[in-house]
Protein backbone atom coordinates (compact mmCIF):
# COMPACT_ATOMS: atom_id res chain seq x y z
CA UNK A 1 0.00 0.00 0.00
CA UNK A 2 2.72 2.40 1.07
CA UNK A 3 4.90 1.28 -1.80
CA UNK A 4 2.20 2.04 -4.33
CA UNK A 5 1.57 5.44 -2.83
CA UNK A 6 5.26 6.16 -2.95
CA UNK A 7 5.46 5.21 -6.62
CA UNK A 8 2.47 7.35 -7.45
CA UNK A 9 3.98 10.36 -5.76
CA UNK A 10 7.31 9.86 -7.49
CA UNK A 11 5.66 9.85 -10.90
CA UNK A 12 3.66 12.92 -9.97
CA UNK A 13 6.77 14.69 -8.75
CA UNK A 14 8.71 13.88 -11.89
CA UNK A 15 5.91 15.14 -14.10
CA UNK A 16 5.52 18.26 -12.01
CA UNK A 17 9.23 19.06 -12.12
CA UNK A 18 9.44 18.49 -15.85
CA UNK A 19 6.59 20.92 -16.49
CA UNK A 20 7.97 23.34 -13.93
CA UNK A 21 11.30 23.18 -15.71
CA UNK A 22 9.62 23.99 -19.03
CA UNK A 23 8.06 27.06 -17.49
CA UNK A 24 11.37 28.12 -15.96
CA UNK A 25 13.18 27.64 -19.28
CA UNK A 26 10.54 29.66 -21.12
CA UNK A 27 10.76 32.36 -18.50
CA UNK A 28 14.55 32.51 -18.78
CA UNK A 29 14.41 32.67 -22.57
CA UNK A 30 11.97 35.60 -22.34
CA UNK A 31 14.17 37.30 -19.80
CA UNK A 32 17.28 36.87 -21.94
CA UNK A 33 15.49 37.95 -25.13
CA UNK A 34 13.90 41.04 -23.63
CA UNK A 35 16.97 42.06 -21.65
CA UNK A 36 19.15 42.00 -24.76
CA UNK A 37 16.59 43.88 -26.83
CA UNK A 38 16.07 46.54 -24.18
CA UNK A 39 19.76 47.47 -24.45
CA UNK A 40 19.05 48.73 -27.97
CA UNK A 41 16.87 51.49 -26.59
CA UNK A 42 19.76 53.12 -24.79
CA UNK A 43 20.73 54.73 -28.10
CA UNK A 44 17.70 54.28 -30.35
CA UNK A 45 14.26 55.40 -29.26
CA UNK A 46 11.50 52.81 -29.16
CA UNK A 47 9.40 55.02 -31.44
CA UNK A 48 12.18 55.17 -34.06
CA UNK A 49 12.47 51.40 -33.96
CA UNK A 50 8.74 50.76 -34.29
CA UNK A 51 8.02 53.41 -36.92
CA UNK A 52 11.35 53.62 -38.76
CA UNK A 53 11.08 53.02 -42.49
CA UNK A 54 14.69 52.08 -43.19
CA UNK A 55 16.80 49.14 -42.10
CA UNK A 56 20.45 50.15 -42.50
CA UNK A 57 22.14 48.17 -39.74
CA UNK A 58 25.76 48.59 -40.81
CA UNK A 59 25.83 52.03 -42.37
CA UNK A 60 27.48 55.04 -40.76
CA UNK A 61 24.07 56.50 -39.95
CA UNK A 62 22.59 53.31 -38.58
CA UNK A 63 18.86 53.03 -38.84
CA UNK A 64 16.93 50.24 -37.23
CA UNK A 65 13.43 50.63 -38.65
CA UNK A 66 11.13 47.70 -38.05
CA UNK A 67 8.43 48.64 -40.59
CA UNK A 68 9.95 47.19 -43.79
CA UNK A 69 10.59 43.89 -42.02
CA UNK A 70 7.21 43.86 -40.29
CA UNK A 71 5.28 44.56 -43.48
CA UNK A 72 7.47 42.09 -45.34
CA UNK A 73 6.43 39.37 -42.90
CA UNK A 74 2.84 40.55 -43.03
CA UNK A 75 2.44 40.54 -46.81
CA UNK A 76 4.07 37.12 -47.21
CA UNK A 77 1.96 35.65 -44.42
CA UNK A 78 -1.24 37.22 -45.71
CA UNK A 79 -0.58 35.88 -49.20
CA UNK A 80 0.10 32.42 -47.83
CA UNK A 81 -3.05 32.39 -45.70
CA UNK A 82 -5.15 33.68 -48.61
CA UNK A 83 -4.63 30.52 -50.57
CA UNK A 84 -3.73 28.00 -47.88
CA UNK A 85 -6.91 28.52 -45.86
CA UNK A 86 -9.53 27.83 -48.57
CA UNK A 87 -7.41 25.00 -49.95
CA UNK A 88 -6.75 23.55 -46.51
CA UNK A 89 -10.35 23.68 -45.36
CA UNK A 90 -11.57 22.24 -48.65
CA UNK A 91 -9.10 19.36 -48.33
CA UNK A 92 -10.15 18.77 -44.74
CA UNK A 93 -13.84 18.65 -45.70
CA UNK A 94 -13.07 16.34 -48.59
CA UNK A 95 -11.01 13.97 -46.47
CA UNK A 96 -13.41 13.75 -43.56
CA UNK A 97 -16.81 14.02 -45.28
CA UNK A 98 -16.69 13.29 -48.97
CA UNK A 99 -13.79 10.98 -49.74
CA UNK A 100 -14.20 7.23 -49.59
CA UNK A 101 -12.56 6.01 -46.36
CA UNK A 102 -9.93 4.17 -48.38
CA UNK A 103 -9.05 7.33 -50.31
CA UNK A 104 -8.92 9.32 -47.07
CA UNK A 105 -6.61 6.75 -45.51
CA UNK A 106 -4.31 7.03 -48.50
CA UNK A 107 -4.33 10.84 -48.48
CA UNK A 108 -3.56 11.38 -44.81
CA UNK A 109 -0.03 9.95 -44.79
CA UNK A 110 0.82 12.10 -47.80
CA UNK A 111 -0.19 15.23 -45.94
CA UNK A 112 1.91 14.13 -42.99
CA UNK A 113 4.89 13.61 -45.29
CA UNK A 114 4.39 17.16 -46.59
CA UNK A 115 4.73 18.38 -42.99
CA UNK A 116 7.95 16.42 -42.55
CA UNK A 117 9.89 17.88 -45.48
CA UNK A 118 12.69 20.13 -44.17
CA UNK A 119 12.17 23.80 -44.98
CA UNK A 120 15.53 24.08 -46.73
CA UNK A 121 14.25 21.51 -49.24
CA UNK A 122 11.14 23.60 -49.80
CA UNK A 123 13.42 26.60 -50.23
CA UNK A 124 15.53 24.84 -52.82
CA UNK A 125 12.44 23.71 -54.70
CA UNK A 126 11.12 27.28 -54.60
CA UNK A 127 14.42 28.69 -55.83
CA UNK A 128 14.77 26.29 -58.74
CA UNK A 129 11.14 25.85 -59.83
CA UNK A 130 8.85 28.58 -58.48
CA UNK A 131 11.18 31.59 -58.77
CA UNK A 132 11.81 31.23 -62.54
CA UNK A 133 8.12 30.38 -63.06
CA UNK A 134 6.88 33.52 -61.27
CA UNK A 135 9.44 35.61 -63.15
CA UNK A 136 8.29 34.33 -66.56
CA UNK A 137 4.57 34.25 -65.75
CA UNK A 138 4.32 37.85 -64.55
CA UNK A 139 7.20 39.06 -66.73
CA UNK A 140 9.10 40.47 -63.73
CA UNK A 141 12.75 41.52 -63.45
CA UNK A 142 13.18 38.83 -60.79
CA UNK A 143 11.08 35.96 -59.50
CA UNK A 144 12.27 36.37 -55.91
CA UNK A 145 9.10 38.05 -54.68
CA UNK A 146 6.66 38.09 -51.80
CA UNK A 147 4.32 36.02 -53.97
CA UNK A 148 6.93 33.27 -54.34
CA UNK A 149 7.37 33.28 -50.57
CA UNK A 150 3.59 33.15 -50.10
CA UNK A 151 3.24 30.16 -52.41
CA UNK A 152 5.97 28.22 -50.63
CA UNK A 153 4.71 29.22 -47.21
CA UNK A 154 1.14 28.30 -48.14
CA UNK A 155 2.27 24.83 -49.14
CA UNK A 156 4.15 24.52 -45.86
CA UNK A 157 1.22 25.74 -43.75
CA UNK A 158 -1.24 23.37 -45.49
CA UNK A 159 -0.50 20.25 -43.40
CA UNK A 160 -1.09 22.16 -40.14
CA UNK A 161 -4.36 23.61 -41.40
CA UNK A 162 -5.59 20.35 -42.96
CA UNK A 163 -4.83 18.04 -40.04
CA UNK A 164 -6.26 20.31 -37.34
CA UNK A 165 -9.37 21.25 -39.38
CA UNK A 166 -9.89 17.61 -40.24
CA UNK A 167 -9.77 16.68 -36.56
CA UNK A 168 -12.32 19.39 -35.80
CA UNK A 169 -14.65 18.31 -38.60
CA UNK A 170 -14.45 14.61 -37.72
CA UNK A 171 -15.25 15.35 -34.10
CA UNK A 172 -18.56 17.03 -34.92
CA UNK A 173 -21.09 14.63 -33.31
CA UNK A 174 -22.70 12.40 -35.92
CA UNK A 175 -26.12 12.98 -34.32
CA UNK A 176 -26.05 16.55 -35.61
CA UNK A 177 -25.09 15.40 -39.09
CA UNK A 178 -27.73 12.70 -39.15
CA UNK A 179 -30.33 15.10 -37.82
CA UNK A 180 -29.64 17.48 -40.66
CA UNK A 181 -29.81 14.74 -43.28
CA UNK A 182 -33.02 13.42 -41.70
CA UNK A 183 -34.61 16.84 -42.05
CA UNK A 184 -34.12 16.54 -45.79
CA UNK A 185 -30.96 18.66 -46.24
CA UNK A 186 -28.68 17.52 -49.02
CA UNK A 187 -25.16 16.39 -48.25
CA UNK A 188 -23.69 19.67 -49.44
CA UNK A 189 -26.18 21.72 -47.40
CA UNK A 190 -25.30 19.63 -44.36
CA UNK A 191 -21.61 20.31 -44.91
CA UNK A 192 -21.74 24.06 -45.26
CA UNK A 193 -24.72 24.87 -43.03
CA UNK A 194 -24.13 22.40 -40.22
CA UNK A 195 -20.79 20.65 -40.12
CA UNK A 196 -18.49 23.55 -40.96
CA UNK A 197 -20.20 25.99 -38.54
CA UNK A 198 -20.11 23.33 -35.84
CA UNK A 199 -16.41 22.76 -36.40
CA UNK A 200 -15.65 26.45 -36.75
CA UNK A 201 -13.75 26.72 -33.47
CA UNK A 202 -11.33 24.02 -34.51
CA UNK A 203 -11.02 25.42 -38.02
CA UNK A 204 -10.28 28.93 -36.70
CA UNK A 205 -7.68 27.51 -34.36
CA UNK A 206 -6.15 25.65 -37.33
CA UNK A 207 -5.98 28.90 -39.28
CA UNK A 208 -4.35 30.75 -36.37
CA UNK A 209 -1.79 27.98 -35.90
CA UNK A 210 -1.14 28.05 -39.65
CA UNK A 211 -0.45 31.80 -39.36
CA UNK A 212 1.85 31.12 -36.44
CA UNK A 213 3.79 28.61 -38.52
CA UNK A 214 3.94 31.07 -41.40
CA UNK A 215 5.19 34.02 -39.30
CA UNK A 216 7.99 31.96 -37.80
CA UNK A 217 9.22 30.33 -41.01
CA UNK A 218 12.77 31.41 -41.87
CA UNK A 219 14.83 29.27 -44.17
CA UNK A 220 12.49 28.97 -47.15
CA UNK A 221 11.66 32.68 -47.11
CA UNK A 222 15.30 33.67 -46.88
CA UNK A 223 15.95 31.62 -50.01
CA UNK A 224 13.05 32.79 -52.21
CA UNK A 225 11.91 36.30 -51.23
CA UNK A 226 14.97 38.30 -52.28
CA UNK A 227 15.47 39.88 -48.82
CA UNK A 228 14.98 43.50 -49.82
CA UNK A 229 14.31 45.70 -46.80
CA UNK A 230 11.83 48.05 -48.49
CA UNK A 231 8.28 48.65 -47.29
CA UNK A 232 6.11 46.77 -49.81
CA UNK A 233 3.26 48.67 -51.45
CA UNK A 234 -0.15 47.06 -51.23
CA UNK A 235 -1.36 45.08 -53.11
CA UNK A 236 1.25 45.54 -55.87
CA UNK A 237 4.04 44.75 -53.41
CA UNK A 238 3.18 41.09 -53.63
CA UNK A 239 5.21 41.04 -56.86
CA UNK A 240 8.22 42.83 -55.30
CA UNK A 241 11.05 41.34 -53.28
CA UNK A 242 10.55 41.66 -49.52
CA UNK A 243 12.46 40.82 -46.36
CA UNK A 244 10.81 39.17 -43.39
CA UNK A 245 11.71 39.59 -39.72
CA UNK A 246 12.90 36.00 -39.35
CA UNK A 247 15.06 36.16 -42.48
CA UNK A 248 16.67 39.36 -41.19
CA UNK A 249 17.72 37.69 -37.96
CA UNK A 250 19.04 34.63 -39.77
CA UNK A 251 20.86 36.70 -42.40
CA UNK A 252 22.58 39.11 -40.06
CA UNK A 253 23.21 36.99 -36.96
CA UNK A 254 26.36 35.56 -38.54
CA UNK A 255 28.84 38.36 -38.29
CA UNK A 256 27.18 40.90 -36.04
CA UNK A 257 29.63 41.82 -33.26
CA UNK A 258 28.22 40.67 -29.93
CA UNK A 259 27.01 43.48 -27.73
CA UNK A 260 26.76 46.05 -30.54
CA UNK A 261 23.62 48.06 -31.28
CA UNK A 262 23.02 45.89 -34.35
CA UNK A 263 23.16 42.78 -32.16
CA UNK A 264 20.57 44.22 -29.80
CA UNK A 265 18.42 45.35 -32.73
CA UNK A 266 18.23 41.75 -33.94
CA UNK A 267 17.15 40.70 -30.47
CA UNK A 268 14.51 43.44 -30.52
CA UNK A 269 13.19 42.04 -33.82
CA UNK A 270 13.17 38.64 -32.16
CA UNK A 271 11.16 40.02 -29.26
CA UNK A 272 8.59 41.49 -31.63
CA UNK A 273 8.29 38.09 -33.32
CA UNK A 274 7.94 36.41 -29.96
CA UNK A 275 5.17 38.78 -28.92
CA UNK A 276 3.34 38.26 -32.23
CA UNK A 277 3.44 34.46 -32.03
CA UNK A 278 2.45 34.65 -28.37
CA UNK A 279 -0.60 36.77 -29.26
CA UNK A 280 -1.54 34.43 -32.11
CA UNK A 281 -1.42 31.45 -29.78
CA UNK A 282 -3.51 33.30 -27.21
CA UNK A 283 -6.11 34.12 -29.86
CA UNK A 284 -6.15 30.53 -31.14
CA UNK A 285 -6.62 29.33 -27.59
CA UNK A 286 -9.44 31.72 -26.78
CA UNK A 287 -11.24 30.91 -30.04
CA UNK A 288 -11.06 27.22 -29.18
CA UNK A 289 -12.45 27.88 -25.70
CA UNK A 290 -15.16 30.32 -26.70
CA UNK A 291 -16.83 28.04 -29.22
CA UNK A 292 -16.12 24.77 -27.54
CA UNK A 293 -19.52 24.08 -25.99
CA UNK A 294 -21.69 25.54 -28.70
CA UNK A 295 -22.07 22.17 -30.38
CA UNK A 296 -23.45 20.20 -27.45
Amino acid sequence: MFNRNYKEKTIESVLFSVSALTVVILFLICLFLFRDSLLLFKNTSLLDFLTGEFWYPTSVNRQFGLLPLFFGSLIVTAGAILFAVPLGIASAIYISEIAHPKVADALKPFIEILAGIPSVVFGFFGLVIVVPFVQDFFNLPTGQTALTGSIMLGIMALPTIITISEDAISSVPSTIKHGSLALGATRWQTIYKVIVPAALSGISAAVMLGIGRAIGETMTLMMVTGNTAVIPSFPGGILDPVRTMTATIALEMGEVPQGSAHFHALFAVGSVLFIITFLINLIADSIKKRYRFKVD
Partner: protein
Amino acid sequence: MANNLKTYTVLTLLVVGLVFLGIGCTGNENGEAQVGETSSEGAPAAEAPAAESQSITLKGSDTVLPLAQAEAEEFMLENSDKSVTVTGGGSGVGITALIDGEVDIATASREIKAEEIEAAQANGINPVETTIAYDGISVVVNPENSVSELTFDQLRGIYNGTISNWKDVGGEDTKIVVISRDSSSGTYEYFKEEVLQGDEYRPDALTQPATGGIVGEVSQNPNAIGYIGVAYLDDSVKALSLDGGNGYEAPTSENILSGAYPLSRSLYFYTNGEPSGLTKEFVDFVLSETGQSLVTEVGYFPVDQ
Protein backbone atom coordinates in the same frame (compact mmCIF):
# COMPACT_ATOMS: atom_id res chain seq x y z
CA MET B 1 -2.54 13.81 4.76
CA ALA B 2 0.18 15.92 6.27
CA ASN B 3 2.52 13.00 5.88
CA ASN B 4 1.60 12.63 2.20
CA LEU B 5 2.22 16.29 1.59
CA LYS B 6 5.62 16.00 3.18
CA THR B 7 6.62 13.03 1.01
CA TYR B 8 5.38 14.91 -2.02
CA THR B 9 7.34 18.05 -1.21
CA VAL B 10 10.52 16.16 -0.44
CA LEU B 11 10.32 14.15 -3.65
CA THR B 12 9.60 17.20 -5.78
CA LEU B 13 12.53 19.06 -4.28
CA LEU B 14 14.71 16.03 -4.84
CA VAL B 15 13.81 15.73 -8.52
CA VAL B 16 14.10 19.48 -9.14
CA GLY B 17 17.41 19.41 -7.33
CA LEU B 18 18.68 16.57 -9.49
CA VAL B 19 17.61 18.34 -12.66
CA PHE B 20 19.33 21.55 -11.68
CA LEU B 21 22.37 19.66 -10.50
CA GLY B 22 22.63 18.35 -14.05
CA ILE B 23 22.46 21.88 -15.42
CA GLY B 24 25.05 23.05 -12.94
CA CYS B 25 27.41 20.28 -13.94
CA THR B 26 27.95 21.49 -17.49
CA GLY B 27 28.85 24.91 -16.13
CA ASN B 28 31.26 23.42 -13.62
CA GLU B 29 32.96 21.26 -16.21
CA ASN B 30 33.71 24.29 -18.35
CA GLY B 31 35.01 26.22 -15.38
CA GLU B 32 37.23 23.39 -14.22
CA ALA B 33 38.49 22.75 -17.72
CA GLN B 34 39.75 26.30 -17.97
CA VAL B 35 41.50 26.20 -14.64
CA GLY B 36 42.91 22.69 -14.92
CA GLU B 37 43.87 22.66 -18.56
CA THR B 38 47.18 24.49 -18.46
CA SER B 39 48.58 22.12 -15.88
CA SER B 40 47.11 18.90 -17.25
CA GLU B 41 47.62 17.18 -20.59
CA GLY B 42 45.97 19.90 -22.71
CA ALA B 43 42.75 18.77 -24.38
CA PRO B 44 41.87 20.09 -27.85
CA ALA B 45 39.28 22.47 -26.39
CA ALA B 46 41.73 24.30 -24.17
CA GLU B 47 41.50 28.04 -24.57
CA ALA B 48 44.58 28.96 -22.62
CA PRO B 49 46.50 31.54 -24.65
CA ALA B 50 49.79 30.62 -23.02
CA ALA B 51 52.64 30.43 -25.51
CA GLU B 52 53.72 26.97 -24.34
CA SER B 53 50.27 25.50 -24.90
CA GLN B 54 50.11 22.60 -27.33
CA SER B 55 46.75 23.75 -28.55
CA ILE B 56 45.60 26.96 -30.24
CA THR B 57 42.26 28.26 -31.45
CA LEU B 58 41.39 30.27 -34.56
CA LYS B 59 38.12 32.08 -35.12
CA GLY B 60 36.75 34.45 -37.71
CA SER B 61 36.03 34.95 -41.39
CA ASP B 62 33.91 32.44 -43.24
CA THR B 63 35.94 33.25 -46.36
CA VAL B 64 39.12 32.14 -44.63
CA LEU B 65 37.43 29.18 -42.92
CA PRO B 66 37.93 26.51 -45.64
CA LEU B 67 41.57 27.57 -45.99
CA ALA B 68 42.25 27.68 -42.25
CA GLN B 69 40.62 24.30 -41.85
CA ALA B 70 42.74 22.73 -44.58
CA GLU B 71 45.88 24.27 -43.06
CA ALA B 72 44.98 23.06 -39.56
CA GLU B 73 44.33 19.52 -40.76
CA GLU B 74 47.62 19.34 -42.61
CA PHE B 75 49.47 20.87 -39.66
CA MET B 76 48.01 18.34 -37.24
CA LEU B 77 48.90 15.47 -39.59
CA GLU B 78 52.52 16.57 -39.38
CA ASN B 79 52.41 17.32 -35.64
CA SER B 80 50.15 14.75 -34.06
CA ASP B 81 50.76 16.02 -30.52
CA LYS B 82 49.54 19.55 -31.33
CA SER B 83 46.04 20.72 -31.85
CA VAL B 84 44.57 23.61 -33.85
CA THR B 85 40.87 24.35 -33.49
CA VAL B 86 39.22 26.44 -36.22
CA THR B 87 35.77 28.04 -36.13
CA GLY B 88 34.01 30.51 -38.42
CA GLY B 89 31.45 33.13 -37.59
CA GLY B 90 32.75 36.06 -39.59
CA SER B 91 35.64 38.52 -39.55
CA GLY B 92 33.94 40.72 -36.95
CA VAL B 93 33.31 37.80 -34.63
CA GLY B 94 36.94 36.67 -34.89
CA ILE B 95 38.37 40.12 -34.19
CA THR B 96 35.99 40.59 -31.23
CA ALA B 97 37.19 37.25 -29.86
CA LEU B 98 40.82 38.37 -30.22
CA ILE B 99 40.03 41.64 -28.42
CA ASP B 100 38.45 39.65 -25.59
CA GLY B 101 41.51 37.39 -25.43
CA GLU B 102 39.48 34.30 -26.27
CA VAL B 103 41.46 33.10 -29.29
CA ASP B 104 45.08 32.91 -30.35
CA ILE B 105 44.46 33.91 -33.97
CA ALA B 106 41.60 35.88 -35.48
CA THR B 107 41.06 35.26 -39.19
CA ALA B 108 39.70 38.11 -41.29
CA SER B 109 38.82 38.90 -44.89
CA ARG B 110 39.08 42.62 -44.20
CA GLU B 111 41.55 44.87 -42.42
CA ILE B 112 41.07 45.51 -38.73
CA LYS B 113 39.21 48.79 -38.13
CA ALA B 114 40.65 51.70 -36.14
CA GLU B 115 37.99 51.40 -33.44
CA GLU B 116 38.75 47.70 -33.11
CA ILE B 117 42.45 48.47 -32.57
CA GLU B 118 41.45 50.99 -29.90
CA ALA B 119 39.21 48.47 -28.17
CA ALA B 120 42.02 45.89 -28.30
CA GLN B 121 44.59 48.27 -26.81
CA ALA B 122 42.16 49.13 -24.03
CA ASN B 123 42.17 45.40 -23.20
CA GLY B 124 45.96 45.20 -23.35
CA ILE B 125 45.91 43.37 -26.69
CA ASN B 126 48.19 44.43 -29.51
CA PRO B 127 46.83 43.10 -32.85
CA VAL B 128 49.53 42.14 -35.34
CA GLU B 129 48.58 41.49 -38.94
CA THR B 130 49.89 38.65 -41.14
CA THR B 131 48.74 38.37 -44.74
CA ILE B 132 48.27 34.69 -45.54
CA ALA B 133 46.65 34.74 -48.99
CA TYR B 134 44.94 36.88 -51.61
CA ASP B 135 41.39 36.68 -52.84
CA GLY B 136 39.62 38.39 -55.74
CA ILE B 137 36.00 39.46 -55.95
CA SER B 138 34.50 39.02 -59.39
CA VAL B 139 31.40 40.84 -60.60
CA VAL B 140 29.20 38.35 -62.44
CA VAL B 141 26.28 38.52 -64.86
CA ASN B 142 24.26 35.97 -66.79
CA PRO B 143 26.15 34.52 -69.81
CA GLU B 144 23.29 35.77 -72.05
CA ASN B 145 24.00 39.35 -71.03
CA SER B 146 25.81 41.29 -73.76
CA VAL B 147 27.65 43.48 -71.25
CA SER B 148 31.12 42.14 -70.47
CA GLU B 149 32.96 45.10 -68.98
CA LEU B 150 32.16 47.94 -66.60
CA THR B 151 34.01 50.93 -65.25
CA PHE B 152 34.12 51.44 -61.52
CA ASP B 153 31.79 54.44 -61.82
CA GLN B 154 29.24 52.36 -63.70
CA LEU B 155 29.48 49.59 -61.12
CA ARG B 156 29.02 52.09 -58.31
CA GLY B 157 26.01 53.59 -60.13
CA ILE B 158 24.43 50.17 -60.51
CA TYR B 159 24.88 49.38 -56.83
CA ASN B 160 23.88 52.76 -55.38
CA GLY B 161 20.82 53.05 -57.61
CA THR B 162 21.70 55.86 -60.05
CA ILE B 163 21.90 53.37 -62.96
CA SER B 164 19.01 50.93 -63.15
CA ASN B 165 18.76 49.95 -66.82
CA TRP B 166 21.21 47.78 -68.73
CA LYS B 167 21.02 50.10 -71.76
CA ASP B 168 22.82 52.80 -69.74
CA VAL B 169 25.93 50.63 -69.63
CA GLY B 170 25.73 49.33 -73.19
CA GLY B 171 23.35 46.43 -72.76
CA GLU B 172 19.73 45.74 -73.65
CA ASP B 173 16.77 47.86 -72.52
CA THR B 174 15.89 45.89 -69.38
CA LYS B 175 15.87 46.66 -65.67
CA ILE B 176 19.01 45.68 -63.78
CA VAL B 177 18.40 43.26 -60.91
CA VAL B 178 21.07 44.06 -58.36
CA ILE B 179 22.13 41.31 -55.95
CA SER B 180 24.28 41.80 -52.88
CA ARG B 181 25.42 39.62 -50.01
CA ASP B 182 23.82 39.99 -46.58
CA SER B 183 25.24 42.68 -44.32
CA SER B 184 26.97 40.17 -42.03
CA SER B 185 29.34 39.10 -44.78
CA GLY B 186 32.90 40.41 -44.91
CA THR B 187 32.56 40.46 -48.69
CA TYR B 188 29.56 42.79 -48.33
CA GLU B 189 31.65 45.23 -46.33
CA TYR B 190 34.67 44.94 -48.60
CA PHE B 191 32.53 45.62 -51.66
CA LYS B 192 30.79 48.51 -49.95
CA GLU B 193 34.10 50.13 -49.03
CA GLU B 194 35.83 49.57 -52.36
CA VAL B 195 33.01 50.11 -54.83
CA LEU B 196 30.37 52.20 -53.09
CA GLN B 197 32.92 54.32 -51.20
CA GLY B 198 30.54 55.69 -48.61
CA ASP B 199 27.29 55.37 -50.56
CA GLU B 200 24.58 53.01 -49.40
CA TYR B 201 23.60 49.92 -51.35
CA ARG B 202 20.37 50.68 -53.21
CA PRO B 203 17.65 49.64 -50.78
CA ASP B 204 15.86 47.43 -53.30
CA ALA B 205 18.90 45.26 -54.01
CA LEU B 206 18.19 41.57 -53.53
CA THR B 207 20.11 40.09 -50.61
CA GLN B 208 21.39 36.53 -50.73
CA PRO B 209 22.49 34.64 -47.63
CA ALA B 210 25.32 32.84 -49.41
CA THR B 211 27.50 32.93 -52.48
CA GLY B 212 25.57 29.93 -53.82
CA GLY B 213 22.39 32.00 -53.85
CA ILE B 214 24.02 34.70 -55.96
CA VAL B 215 25.39 32.20 -58.47
CA GLY B 216 21.95 30.54 -58.62
CA GLU B 217 20.02 33.75 -59.30
CA VAL B 218 22.55 35.17 -61.78
CA SER B 219 22.70 31.91 -63.74
CA GLN B 220 18.88 31.90 -64.05
CA ASN B 221 18.18 35.59 -64.51
CA PRO B 222 19.51 37.41 -67.60
CA ASN B 223 18.96 40.80 -65.90
CA ALA B 224 20.90 40.07 -62.72
CA ILE B 225 24.29 41.24 -61.53
CA GLY B 226 26.11 40.05 -58.41
CA TYR B 227 29.56 39.66 -56.86
CA ILE B 228 31.31 36.51 -55.65
CA GLY B 229 34.77 35.31 -54.63
CA VAL B 230 36.78 34.17 -57.68
CA ALA B 231 37.10 30.74 -56.08
CA TYR B 232 33.37 30.30 -56.77
CA LEU B 233 33.45 31.21 -60.50
CA ASP B 234 32.04 28.59 -62.87
CA ASP B 235 30.53 28.32 -66.35
CA SER B 236 27.01 29.21 -65.27
CA VAL B 237 27.96 32.89 -64.82
CA LYS B 238 30.08 35.40 -66.70
CA ALA B 239 32.78 37.38 -64.88
CA LEU B 240 33.04 41.03 -65.95
CA SER B 241 36.25 42.90 -66.65
CA LEU B 242 36.49 46.01 -64.50
CA ASP B 243 38.15 49.36 -65.08
CA GLY B 244 39.40 50.91 -61.87
CA GLY B 245 41.15 53.72 -63.77
CA ASN B 246 43.88 51.77 -65.58
CA GLY B 247 41.93 50.05 -68.33
CA TYR B 248 39.73 46.96 -68.26
CA GLU B 249 41.16 44.02 -66.37
CA ALA B 250 39.69 40.51 -66.14
CA PRO B 251 39.74 38.69 -62.77
CA THR B 252 42.54 36.29 -63.72
CA SER B 253 45.08 35.04 -61.20
CA GLU B 254 47.87 37.19 -62.73
CA ASN B 255 45.78 40.34 -62.56
CA ILE B 256 44.70 39.65 -58.99
CA LEU B 257 48.24 38.91 -57.80
CA SER B 258 49.72 41.95 -59.53
CA GLY B 259 46.95 44.13 -58.12
CA ALA B 260 45.91 45.23 -61.63
CA TYR B 261 42.42 43.86 -61.09
CA PRO B 262 40.78 46.45 -58.86
CA LEU B 263 38.80 44.13 -56.59
CA SER B 264 41.50 42.03 -55.00
CA ARG B 265 41.91 41.80 -51.27
CA SER B 266 44.15 40.15 -48.71
CA LEU B 267 43.15 37.50 -46.22
CA TYR B 268 44.62 38.01 -42.76
CA PHE B 269 45.60 36.37 -39.51
CA TYR B 270 45.55 38.68 -36.48
CA THR B 271 47.53 37.71 -33.40
CA ASN B 272 48.16 39.36 -30.05
CA GLY B 273 51.68 40.69 -30.53
CA GLU B 274 54.20 38.95 -32.78
CA PRO B 275 53.27 35.25 -32.99
CA SER B 276 55.18 33.03 -30.56
CA GLY B 277 55.24 29.39 -29.53
CA LEU B 278 52.72 27.17 -31.24
CA THR B 279 50.98 30.19 -32.79
CA LYS B 280 54.25 31.10 -34.53
CA GLU B 281 54.75 27.48 -35.61
CA PHE B 282 51.31 27.47 -37.19
CA VAL B 283 51.67 30.86 -38.89
CA ASP B 284 55.06 29.79 -40.25
CA PHE B 285 53.52 26.58 -41.51
CA VAL B 286 50.77 28.50 -43.34
CA LEU B 287 53.39 30.73 -44.98
CA SER B 288 55.62 27.76 -45.86
CA GLU B 289 55.63 26.13 -49.28
CA THR B 290 53.29 23.34 -48.15
CA GLY B 291 50.92 25.84 -46.57
CA GLN B 292 50.84 28.07 -49.61
CA SER B 293 50.22 25.14 -51.95
CA LEU B 294 47.08 24.49 -49.90
CA VAL B 295 46.04 28.10 -50.56
CA THR B 296 46.01 27.38 -54.30
CA GLU B 297 44.17 24.12 -53.73
CA VAL B 298 41.38 25.82 -51.80
CA GLY B 299 40.98 28.41 -54.58
CA TYR B 300 42.80 31.49 -53.30
CA PHE B 301 46.13 32.98 -54.30
CA PRO B 302 49.43 32.49 -52.46
CA VAL B 303 51.35 35.43 -50.96
CA ASP B 304 54.95 34.52 -51.74
CA GLN B 305 55.10 35.88 -55.28
